[in-house]
């Protein structure tokens, strides 16, 4: 292979790569470049292009290679630029990915949950074996709480055995023991069928195993035998057939095979003991019945009632013949299984659809045993479904809250459909509390209190609002739940206010900051009115104590400051030394809302003391802050605060006026007094007006203090 060929190959390769890149890169960037245009044109054929190149000689080829190389560098550069251009998109995508990651996490969590659900279900199917081991415990419990235990046991029967509702309807009947056995032919000992025996406290129920059955119903009711009419025989020798025992229930005699010697022994022992217990109970009952009979014989009973009871029973028997027809429909037969499926797959909507459908159907059915039995089976699943939905709403620490609201909304809707609105409401709100807490924790404290509070409000109130909207949507027709929401909102607000107080009053925030923070919250509270929630008063109430304390403290400090500075006051006009500095000062004070320009003389003098100008500045700012926090409840406090501060200042001025030492400054003092009592007070009045608050008469009186001081001066001896 000669050199030319090699170069040719290289060029083809580079050109191909560049074409690829060029088509990706921004076409605008490439447009000025002729070569680029050729390369990025649609019908570009690299082979053709290169073979043409090759014809034009080696030198041309080399320059072309260089050009292509340059273009390649350019393209790489522009690609890089493109990356920056799309930087925000990259960021967004990365965010998206992190969200996805969170969701994946939740998904995997759900999967493990589902796995445990499955293993629970598996365990459930082994209950029979467990019951054998735990039998004595079950019995003790049964004695402690017979009602509860009975219900539990009987539900279990209905779950497993088809057609046993009549068995479960006897009050006081309990399950003592149960297990799988194999029925043998009593003559030949050949296996006949798999059965499951349920030993109840008064009888033995036999159920034959249903082959090819999915779902929990695995047996069909075979027979119920009263314990006192059956006899148990331990088969000690049945040739090769081990672990067998006989049950004689005239005229039948059946042989069962247990799977182990231990299990057989257990059956024999428990059967015997249960029979004994039953006999003892019967004896007691008989005695009681005899006693009752004697009493009844004395108070001759009307025979009419007895008859009535009988006809009722007849009727229900007639209905019983029809009952099975009701439940014969395919969809009904498969419904319990379908429900199980939906629950397992977390298809809650589907499950609730089924429940609603079947309940609607069952309403029209007569309340006959088979229907009751079927209903019990459905109810059992509804319970499972409810539990599943509730756990969806439960807040567990390991569960990510991402996508939480969506899942919660879903679960709530289904729970409401199942008539569990109270639970749904409770869990939903708890869930939301967790979300709010989580979101608040995400806020980083940046140092500036106002900023933090703004963020806090930005998280808390929209969340509250969201919850409210969500809640209104979900619980539209459940007015009872509305109060729950209001109570919840108030509780949340309390938590919020606690945080707020810690941040705002805990630090050394000044009043402007505090006023700003409070203002932010109030504004946010107002926004809640949009969803019909008015927490304004609640907020004020929660804040009241701290705020009042703070205002009082501020006032005390202020008054202390007046006294302190008053003692130092030399009653000299401010001298800013230069016109420039004076103007700078004027600018500062005008920002604070005071206009002192009329008081300037000799370019750099202002005919107020430093103390006065400081008082005016701080007092005006205080008034502004106080009034920006104004509520009718705070009205008196604000007024008193201002009144006291002014009084303190007046005291200071009055005292100095009376001092012989300052007799020469009386005019100047009065100038200051006039500014404070008339100009400043005027400004404060304007603040009141701006805030739409009535100017309190107590402050109006302060205005009169100037005249009082004036007349005071007249009475003073001249210097």
């Amino acid at each position, binding site marked *: 292979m000669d050199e030319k060929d090699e170069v040719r190959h290289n060029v083809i390769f580079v050109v191909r790569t560049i074409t690829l890149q060029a088509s990706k890169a921004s076409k605008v960037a490439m447009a000025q470049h002729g070569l680029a245009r050729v390369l990025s044109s649609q019908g570009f054929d690299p082979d053709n292009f290169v073979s043409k190149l090759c014809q034009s000689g080696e030198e041309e080829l080399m320059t072309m290679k260089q050009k292509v190389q340059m273009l390649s560098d350019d393209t790489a550069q522009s690609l890089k630029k493109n990356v920056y251009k799309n930087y925000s998109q990259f960021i967004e995508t990365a965010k998206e990915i992190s969200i996805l990651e969170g969701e994946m996490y939740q998904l995997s969590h759900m999967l493990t949950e589902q796995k445990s659900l499955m293993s629970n279900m598996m365990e459930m199917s082994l209950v029979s074996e467990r019951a054998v081991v735990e039998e004595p415990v079950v019995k003790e419990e049964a004695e402690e709480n017979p009602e509860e235990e009975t219900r539990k046991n009987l539900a279990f029967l209905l779950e497993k055995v088809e057609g046993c509702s009549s068995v479960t309807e006897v009050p006081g009947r309990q399950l003592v023991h149960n297990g799988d056995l194999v029925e043998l032919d009593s003559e030949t000992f050949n*296996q006949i069928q798999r059965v499951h025996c349920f030993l109840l406290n008064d009888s033995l129920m036999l159920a034959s195993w249903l082959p090819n059955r999915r779902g929990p119903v695995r047996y069909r009711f075979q027979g119920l035998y009263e314990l006192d009419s059956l006899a148990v025989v331990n088969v000690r020798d049945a040739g090769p057939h081990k672990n067998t025992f006989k049950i004689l229930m005239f005229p039948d005699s059946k042989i069962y095979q247990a799977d182990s010697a231990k299990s057989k022994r257990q059956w024999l022992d428990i059967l015997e003991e249960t029979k004994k217990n039953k006999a003892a109970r019967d004896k007691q009952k008989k005695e009681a019945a005899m006693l009752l009979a004697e009493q009844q014989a004395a108070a001759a009973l009307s025979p009419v009632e007895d008859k009535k009871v009988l006809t009722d029973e007849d009727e229900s028997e007639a209905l019983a013949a029809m009952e099975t027809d009701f439940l014969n429909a395919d969809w009904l037969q498969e419904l319990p299984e379908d429900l199980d499926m939906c629950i397992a797959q977390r298809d809650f909507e589907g499950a609730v659809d089924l429940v609603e459908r079947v309940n609607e159907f069952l309403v029209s059915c007569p309340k006959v045993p088979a229907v009751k039995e079927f209903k019990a089976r459905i109810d059992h699943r509804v319970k499972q479904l409810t539990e599943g939905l509730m756990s969806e709403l439960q807040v567990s620490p390991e569960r990510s809250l991402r996508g939480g609201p969506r899942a919660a909304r879903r679960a709530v809707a289904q729970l409401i459909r199942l008539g569990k609105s109270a639970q749904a409401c409770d869990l939903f709100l708890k869930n939301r509390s967790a979300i709010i807490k989580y979101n608040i924790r995400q806020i980083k404290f940046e140092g500036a209190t106002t900023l933090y509070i703004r963020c806090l409000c930005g998280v808390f109130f929209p969340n509250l609002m969201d919850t409210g909207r969500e809640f209104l949507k979900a619980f539209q027709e459940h007015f009872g739940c509305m109060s729950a929401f209001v109570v919840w909102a108030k509780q949340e607000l309390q938590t919020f206010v606690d945080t707020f107080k810690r941040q705002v009053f805990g630090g050394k925030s000044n009043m402007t900051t505090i006023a700003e923070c409070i203002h932010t919250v109030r504004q946010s509270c107002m926004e809640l009115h949009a969803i019909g929630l008015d927490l304004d008063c609640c907020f004020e109430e929660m804040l009241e104590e701290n705020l009042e304390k703070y205002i009082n403290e501020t006032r005390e400090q202020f008054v202390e400051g007046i006294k302190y500075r008053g003692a130092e006051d030399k009653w000299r006009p401010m001298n800013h030394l230069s016109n420039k500095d004076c103007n700078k000062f004027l600018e500062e004070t005008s920002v604070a809302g005071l206009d002192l320009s009329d008081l300037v003389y000799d370019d750099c003098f202002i005919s107020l003391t430093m103390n006065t100008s400081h008082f005016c500045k701080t007092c005006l700012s205080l008034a502004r802050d106080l009034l920006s926090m104004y509520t009718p409840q705070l009205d008196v406090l604000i007024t008193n605060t201002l009144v006291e501060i002014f009084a303190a200042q007046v005291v200071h001025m009055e005292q100095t006026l009376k001092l012989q030492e300052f007799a020469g400054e009386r005019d100047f003092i009065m100038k200051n007094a006039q500014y404070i009592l008339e100009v400043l007070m005027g400004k404060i009045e304007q603040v009141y007006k701006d805030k739409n608050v009535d100017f309190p008469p107590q402050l109006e009186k302060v205005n009169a203090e100037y005249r009082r001081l004036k007349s005071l001066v007249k009475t003073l001896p001249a210097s």
Partner: protein
Amino acid sequence: MFSCWTRRQKANMSKAKATQPQVIHKVIMVGSGGVGKSALTLQFMYDEFVEDYEPTKADSYRKKVVLDGEEVQIDILDTAGQEDYAAIRDNYFRSGEGFLCVFSITEQESFQATADFREQILRVKNDDNIPFLLVGNKADLEEKRQVTVDEAQQRAQQWSVPYVETSAKTRANVDKVFYDLMREIRSRKMEATRQSNGKPKKKKEKRRKCTLL
């Protein structure tokens, strides 16, 4: 989800194999506690004598035997002699085709009790001719005899049943009582089929016709 294993179970569950039906004679051991019902049964079954006394509740045994050249099965139900179980005896007695009513010759009371057992059996089976043997056990303990042979024989005659003295310890007459009872049962069964050759057969024919139609 659940179908997999249930199907497998089904495959394991072979249906009853058709075996040749064998005659089974159902014998019930009755008598007071401690007279040796279990001892007799175990001696018959396994040629062994058990010295320890362990009260029985209700045990059953099955054994293949050759009765006069015919292979049959004997099904022995060894019941409880103790009074605690008296109330539920009915349930057991119903399933018996023949009874060995055992007493101990060393215990007069056990002999007296046989009358009660007899009465109960007749009531439950509602049949005066039920195969029944009066068995005086522990014959090896001659020196402790409390029940005379005469006494026992008299009662047996009164009931029209055989009286046999046995010893579970020495195996004396053990096989005899079981085989004699089986023969009684067998003859009762044959008698029953002979008797039913008339009416029941007609019934059978009728049934066959029905199936043909």
